[in-house]
């Protein structure tokens, strides 16, 4: 749609699409930028059964209450960010903010669209974990961090949310839009010894 023609992801200026390959070959690290999406920061009383119940009926699945985990519905996912804070991710056009506004009306909550405030970098491949280990103090060993887990942490100097999607392993790295390029360069540089391939997001 015309709309998307005007909209730019944080890394659009890097022209990643043109550099993307579908034959990564020997590369130990695959990197991509995910397309724009709705990222709704949801705030509410995570200790209130009632709130969680209403939220559940509103989005069709339960918000994660176990710290640093992800729950998933048909067309959106919810990442635990704090005892009273979640990040809901859905494709553009889902209109999550409106849905939540209707569903939670009358309750103490805040649903704020932050999709434009973020960039999501995809990092996967046999050495993805090694690259993250260079910058991030989390223990990403499968025993302690696997698919369905997320964590807010520090990548080098960058505040980031890391979510693991599968056992490839594939990770999603959420960072502020303004530091997306620094983050990309950092990961590219850290991955260079394993070989980096850019793939479609």
């Amino acid at each position, binding site marked *: 749609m015309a709309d998307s023609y005007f909209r730019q992801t944080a890394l659009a200026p890097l022209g990643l699409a043109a550099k993307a390959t579908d034959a990564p070959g020997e590369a130990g690290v695959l990197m991509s930028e995910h397309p724009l999406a709705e990222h709704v920061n949801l705030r509410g009383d995570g200790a209130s059964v009632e709130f969680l119940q209403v939220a559940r009926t509103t989005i069709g699945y339960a918000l994660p209450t176990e*710290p*640093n985990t992800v729950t998933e519905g048909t067309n959106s996912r919810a990442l635990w*960010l*704090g*005892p009273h804070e979640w990040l809901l991710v859905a494709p553009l056009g889902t209109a999550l903010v409106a849905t939540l506004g209707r569903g939670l009306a009358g309750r103490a909550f805040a649903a704020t669209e932050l999709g434009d405030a973020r960039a999501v970098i995809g990092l996967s491949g046999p050495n993805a974990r090694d690259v993250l280990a260079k910058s991030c*103090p*989390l223990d990403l060993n499968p025993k302690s961090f696997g698919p369905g887990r997320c964590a*807010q*942490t520090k990548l080098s100097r960058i*505040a980031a949310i890391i979510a693991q999607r599968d056992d490839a392993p594939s990770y999603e790295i959420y960072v502020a839009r303004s530091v997306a390029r620094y983050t990309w360069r950092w990961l590219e540089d850290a991955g260079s010894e394993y070989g980096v391939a850019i793939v479609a997001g």
Partner: protein
Amino acid sequence: MLLINCPWCGPRDEIEFTCGGEAHIARPADPAALSDQEWAEYLFMRKNLKGLHYERWHHSYGCRQWFNAARDTVTHEIHATYKMGETPPVVAGEDGVVKGGNS
């Protein structure tokens, strides 16, 4: 390099946190009623304990929650962390004697 047990996220590296200094210093209900000296006590004066110290920590790169920690300022041992509003645990030091304490 401390390993700090965030009451929400569990053990995380020191670099994810910020220290907020001495804990359990409530803001006076009616500052206007205080003398300059009393106000300075709240504003500036600190226990600065050597040994067990109750202090505020913020998981700034994580869940962004403030919490309290009972930490030994000599050994850096963290005896306990607890959520805001919870009453501070009484901690026995290595010698078994309860040191410090909260105000």
